[in-house]
């Protein structure tokens, strides 16, 4: 459990957008999915997840609607908007460039 990593600034938005690119999801679902997809390395603090969701909604990158969850409970689902999709694509590119460049500087382990 100790190999969990603090998320670098700005990556949270990218992770949320990426997760929502698969399917509309509620907040809890997003955090579960990120955890799964990162093999338990990345865990999103709820304290930062929800403010981030509201911020992305305000920017118009994601849209929210109330739906019914798997176990028949009312839940707030988020989905990617068209501009959110564009944002994801460009941020993904940026991230790839950044990590590649950082890796290059650091050199082989």
């Amino acid at each position, binding site marked *: 459990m100790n190999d969990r990593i603090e998320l670098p600034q700005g990556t949270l938005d990218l992770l949320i957008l990426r997760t929502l690119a698969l399917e509309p999801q509620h907040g809890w679902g997003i955090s579960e999915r990120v955890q799964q997809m990162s093999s338990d390395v990345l865990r999103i603090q*709820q304290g930062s997840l929800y*403010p981030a969701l509201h911020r992305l909604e305000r*920017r118009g990158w994601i849209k929210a609607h109330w739906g019914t969850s798997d176990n028949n409970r009312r839940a707030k689902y988020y989905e990617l908007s068209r501009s959110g999709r564009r944002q994801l694509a460009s941020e993904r590119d940026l991230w790839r460039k950044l990590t590649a460049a950082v890796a290059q500087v650091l050199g082989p382990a």
Partner: protein
Amino acid sequence: MLDDLFFRVRSLLRRETVESEMEDELRFHSEHQIEKYLKAGMSRSEALRRVRLEFGGLEQVKEDCRDARGVSLIETLAQDLRYGGRTLRKWPGFAAAALLTLALGIGANTAIFSVVYGILLRPLPFRDVSRLVLLNETTPRVGDVSVSYPNFRDWRSQSHAFAEMAAVNAVNFNMAGSNQPENISGLAVSPNFLPMMGVQPVMGRGFTPDEEKAGAAPVVLLSYALWQSQFGADRRMIGQTIRLDSHTATIVGVLPPEFRWVEKCDVMEPIGVWATHNDSATERGERGDLLVAGRLAAGLRMEQARAEMETIAAGLARAYPEVNDQCGVKLRPLREAFSGDVRPAMLVLLGAALFVLLVACANVANLFLMRGAVRSREMAVRIAIGASRGRIVRQMLTESFLVALLGGVAGVGLAMAGIPAIARLIPPDTLAGASLGMNGAVLLFSAGLVVLSMFLSGLAPALHSMSGNVQAELKEGGKTTSAGARNRWRGLLAASEVGLALVLLVGAGLMLKSLYRLLAVDSGFRSAHVLKLEMDLRTVQYDKDPAVIAFWQQTLDRVRALPGVESAAIGTDIPLTDDHSRADITVEGMALPSPGSFPHPDIHIVSPDYEKTLGIRLLRGHTFTQANRENAPRVAMVNVTAAQRLFPGTDPVGKRFMFGHPGAGRKPQWLTIVGVIADTRMYGLANPARLEVYLPFRQSPSNGMVLLVKSGQEPTALVSAIRGIVTSIDREQPIFGIATMQEVVNASVSTRRITLILLGLFSGLALVLAGIGIYGVISYSVTQRAREIGIRIALGAQRGDVLRLVLAQGAKISAAGIVMGSAASLGLTRLMAKLLYAVSAADPATFAVVAVVLALIAMVASYIPARRTLRVDPLIALRQE
């Protein structure tokens, strides 16, 4: 950007929904998380604990979400306002005091500004007013005089600096109305006057170029007010006729309701119609009531126009020396003509009102500081649990904003109640048709005052609240460390209140002394129990002198016979008014000067008993009698000034003079001086007497006269009896301008009187506020120093010593204030020099009296709280340790 704003606003408007959704969403999350942990085999309590830990502060998360949604900026403002409102309710005494103080300050300013706006600032209802100029002639012997119509015509044809010029001649008519005959005022204007001013009749037509020529068919435009009051706002009146004097004129239109002029205007006629009935239209030497309005040509400045007009006037003086010698021309912006006289008084009062507001703000700032001392712990606690200092300042300013806003609302209410009272003080002449009251511009000004008050009364306390030392405040149950700094602030504020109050009091003192000296001036006449009524015989039957003489003689005889009448007389002019006729005279045997330097006295046509009715002293010779009739030798009286100037060192009685200049082939008509009477202040109490010549009315009949009636009791009781007499002689003869001479005297000093009343009110207000300010500072300091005082007494100090100690603090404040205020007054009172009469702006006596009064008030204000030190029980004071 816009989307973002919509999102924020929606979040704000749907706050309830958004909040509950947020709640649901977060609960949903934690429930899922708990379920997950339960599935993983944790106990329920363990799962709950874990979830709570992971979540951090739930409220914190919510707040962060709100931040993310962008509602927080507006929300905190709303919070501050709610919190501010709660605090004010919690301190009702403080809130009421602060609110009332600011309401008085803002109210005074709003009321004065509404008057200043109405008279000085409100846009005149003309096109491009800044290019409009009013012109009149001048002569060194009189100063400003009217324009002769032939001179105007030459000005217009020779001038290039003006795109247009128009003559505006004040006239009046007798109108035989439906019930009581009335005298109405009017303007005879060049046909281009209205187009030049950019004024369109609301109905009917303006005047045509043809109507400039003498002999034009009589037509009139009605003022909107007259059309409403006399003709029931009936549109069918256009094309109908109206009887003015004995003539019939066709109504061709109605002026717009907002039209106003320097003089009152009920009807307007083309100058050609006036020229038909008036010889003065062709007499270059006649200067009646004509002014000239002009519109500067594009791109030209007033200075250029003035230079050109001076050249033209000089040319006319050379061409017609007999009537134009030494005559100049004066140009002034039209705006100034509408407000010239009262401008200095208005500005002084606006400045004074602003001072009252400053005193009020200082007082409220002091209240805030005083309360700040009590709340310093609350502030320290709030800072300790995480409020930023910026947030605290913002919140303090929000509180002062609330106070200022409520004070402003109450102040506007006060002003609305006060404006009618102030408006009643202002004579209609000064108003020149301006209407006073609340409007958008005035409200905007009040809003500005609210913001100003917010900063002035809130900034010092707010900044001060930042400087405190949190740890020290929290320690030891709050023995405040910043008290010293706070007291310095408060002392400074109280001292500046004293200083400001001193400036206002000095201003009021100087005004009071001026008015007192002015009213103590020997006016040369007695106003008590004298009534004045004006009449102008304008109908065709009075074209012949005998009819005029008969009317006046009959009126006089019958008025004199009324019970209660001590004496009655008529005269063309009465003292303290403005319109006087003047003429050149030639004294028998004098050396002949240039045409523009002949003696030019005022000419008064009076009946016997004139000087007796007005209480003017006869100094030499005798007054007019019934013997000075039409065919008797012509006689005259002169005033002392004329006697001294024209006949220095000799007795004028028996000397002769004639009107006009001696001309070749003209037989001189000599008048013999029979008496010398005292000078009267014809041009206002502050102005010295001019040369005056009196003529008996039967030898120089005049159609326009003022009837003066002196009675044993209240003279206004005679009005209806006099009306009855006039009606029985001529049913269609109107009487106007009815007033007592006392009212005439009062009106002549009205500007100074209003200034004094308001200045006195303002300085009284400032004085009370400053007293309260000192009281507050001393009273607070006594409370704060109770411990120190207790120790001093315990150590053997006499109570008298302690009392002196506290009083010394008050004395220091008032001394500082008096020094600051005196220095400021010396600079500021010079600005009101124009309003003063026979008093220097730096009058030492006024300064001394005001300083003593303030020192006494300060002494009393500090003595009352200081006395409490006498009751300090050292044991109780020390026990508080």
